[in-house]
């Protein structure tokens, strides 16, 4: 019976009630989405800055679960400039992946919904707000203009189809008009060569299980690059790989980015990889951006206590320390977020103002913003 008193306990009746209410909310969203013949002016927008490939503007993505609403992404704003790499760092469960899935509109439906905010995607002549774009239009964007490299290469590839067929499919769907099967095959083999697979003809007719982890990840990258996308989302592309293979893949990504001049949104929890790849860094914590800036800003002048803690808790080769710093406590429960700064309970640098509501973004310099009360005085609020 001790369990009943435990925090977060829900009776079956309570859970049913929540689930009924959720269904009402999510049905409304789904109905909106499933409309046919949506006029273009509903989802076409203009970019705030035409030099950006993607703009996340106050994005809120919630999951309506039977235990309550999980605010996985709660007011995230940042930009991905054209031709640049933006690194998104944070611990698991901080909303990095949900942010990227919101851009792809691949959220687990109907529980996961973008409830507020906009994601503007710049395609040169047109700009789409993907949160309002109907599914049929999205299908033409996904894989063509925006594509994703997934974390686990084994689960991202279909085990019952040959490598060649899987890449051909992407080209046929998006770019295959008027091309013969031979042309498409030639292009696929070209792609496999581009990502550094020596035996490209052989790999074309292999199954995913015949390849090693590094090779599979190359295939996934080839698939993502098949239609020269404008935006590539790399969701922890090297986490499952060894350091030596990781070095190869990072090298490859950097070369390819320069060749097709696309933007990369690079999601990882490895600060070393971020430092190597990213031009801009976004640090997320519990569904919010706590700090953003150029790579130099974040690594040389980390401002938010969470960023500082994260840097100190990772051992660095060549630096001898007796005891690693560890951030005390744990991430707050995503269903009952506190109404003050989410990091306050774990923060060792609290100031008087920390009891107030969640701090807004403060500009430390033109490129460097942080959301923390320590920097409130003397700086203009934004």
């Amino acid at each position, binding site marked *: 019976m001790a369990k009943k008193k435990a925090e977060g306990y829900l009776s079956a009746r309570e859970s049913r009630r929540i689930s009924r209410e959720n269904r009402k909310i999510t049905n409304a969203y789904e109905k909106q989405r499933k409309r046919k013949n949506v006029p273009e002016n509903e989802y076409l927008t203009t970019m705030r800055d035409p030099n950006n490939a993607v703009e996340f503007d106050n994005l809120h993505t919630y999951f309506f679960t039977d235990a309550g609403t999980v605010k996985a992404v709660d007011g995230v704003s940042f930009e991905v400039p054209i031709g640049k790499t933006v690194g998104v760092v944070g*611990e*698991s469960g901080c909303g990095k992946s949900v942010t990227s899935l919101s851009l792809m509109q691949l959220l687990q439906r109907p529980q996961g919904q973008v409830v507020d905010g906009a994601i503007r995607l710049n395609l040169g002549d047109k700009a789409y707000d993907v949160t309002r774009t109907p599914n049929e239009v999205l299908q033409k964007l996904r894989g063509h203009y925006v594509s994703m490299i997934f974390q686990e290469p084994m689960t991202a590839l279909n085990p019952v189809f040959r490598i060649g067929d899987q890449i051909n499919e992407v080209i046929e769907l998006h770019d295959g008009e008027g091309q013969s099967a031979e042309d498409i095959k030639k292009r696929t083999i070209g792609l496999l060569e581009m990502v550094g697979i020596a035996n490209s003809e052989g790999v074309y007719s292999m199954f995913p299980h015949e390849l*090693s*982890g*590094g*090779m599979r990840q190359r295939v996934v990258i080839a698939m993502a690059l098949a239609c020269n996308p404008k935006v590539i989302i790399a969701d922890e592309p090297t986490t499952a790989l*060894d*350091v*030596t*293979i*990781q*070095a*190869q893949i*990072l*090298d490859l990504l950097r070369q390819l980015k320069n060749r097709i001049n696309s933007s990369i949104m690079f999601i990882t*929890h*490895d*600060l*070393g*990889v*971020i*430092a*190597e790849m*990213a031009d801009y860094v976004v640090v997320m914590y519990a569904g919010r951006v706590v700090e953003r800036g150029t*790579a*130099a800003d974040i*690594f040389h002048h980390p401002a938010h206590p969470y960023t500082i*803690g*994260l*840097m100190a*808790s*990772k*051992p*660095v*080769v*060549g630096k001898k*320390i007796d*005891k*690693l*710093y*560890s*951030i005390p406590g*744990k991430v707050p429960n995503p269903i009952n977020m506190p109404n003050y700064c989410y990091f306050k309970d774990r923060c060792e640098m609290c100031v008087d103002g920390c009891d107030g509501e969640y701090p807004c973004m403060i500009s430390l310099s033109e490129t460097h913003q942080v959301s923390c009360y320590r920097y409130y005085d003397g700086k203009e609020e934004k």
Partner: protein
Amino acid sequence: MAAINKTQIDTSFTPVTYDPQYILMVNNLKKYFPIKGGMISRTVGHVKAVDGVTFNLKRGTTMGLVGESGCGKTTTGRTILRLSGEKTGGQVLFNGKEVYDLSAKEMREMRTKMQIIFQDPFSSLSPRLPVGEIIGEAVREHKLVASEEFDDYIDRIMDSCGLQPFHKDRYPHEFSGGQRQRICIARALALNPEFVVCDEPVSALDVSIQAQIINLLRELQEQYKLTYLFISHDLSVVEHISDSVGVMYLGNLVEYGTTEDIFRMPLHPYTEALLSAIPVPDPDAKMNRIVLEGSIPSPANPPKGCKFHTRCEKCMEVCKYAAPEWTEVEPNHFCACHLYNSADAQARANETMKAEMAAQ
């Protein structure tokens, strides 16, 4: 089956004698896994998972074991603990006793002295047992404490691993990854071991949780005078926690030395490449990277000569034919590479090369 295995045991090594300063002496340890094929499942080949590993581990120190996935780090750890059947060859002396010569009864006693922490805290805890039982099961089995002291003992162990007494009645699914790893550590420590194999204990955890677990492991080491064999592919973690480091490639140790030596003055080209591949969290850091081509060859059919020669930058003619010898290049810094051969080893290698070339 056992009879077949017995005949296959490789005896081509010089036995070592026990030196009391070392808790663990591993001498030319080999572990092959048979590949079965054909109609009557004959053995058609062997996966040479561990193919001659030699090192000595001092009491109360930590040895790191690094290498790419599939190089045999984990198999080495498990073979030392006699967890994966019979060995194929070599010696494992734990406190001077050959682990594989112990009878079932003696082995049972020995088990309390050597423990393992597994990689994945999500699959290594039974979902059907409460945490108190997970930690206490082996303690009761080995009758380490009297039954009236049992509860206090478990509480004390849990407390030292950062778990609360009320966690005892909960089940593993109610815990986060870091907490589960604490349970795994508590389970290993409850038997009061001397030697613990930590098989990638922090790989599945977040950065901030990693730091907590690493700090915990170090505190416990001081408190209980533990010896660790720390298996990991994260070199920065290994550098932080280890006193000595062994680098493995395709079933062989290629380099072994103190942490200082390995990270400041790596000898083997593979170690150099491995170290240069570590991403540094500094955007201005100069990149001087040795990118290894290709991936690790199959251990069922390893390359001839030096196993690393297919990917080595400094590959010479001799590397393709003769396997390098395990030599002590500097005091307590071992390396297996033709670049650091002594004069007579060089002569032997050249002879092997000539013989091999003539045979072709």
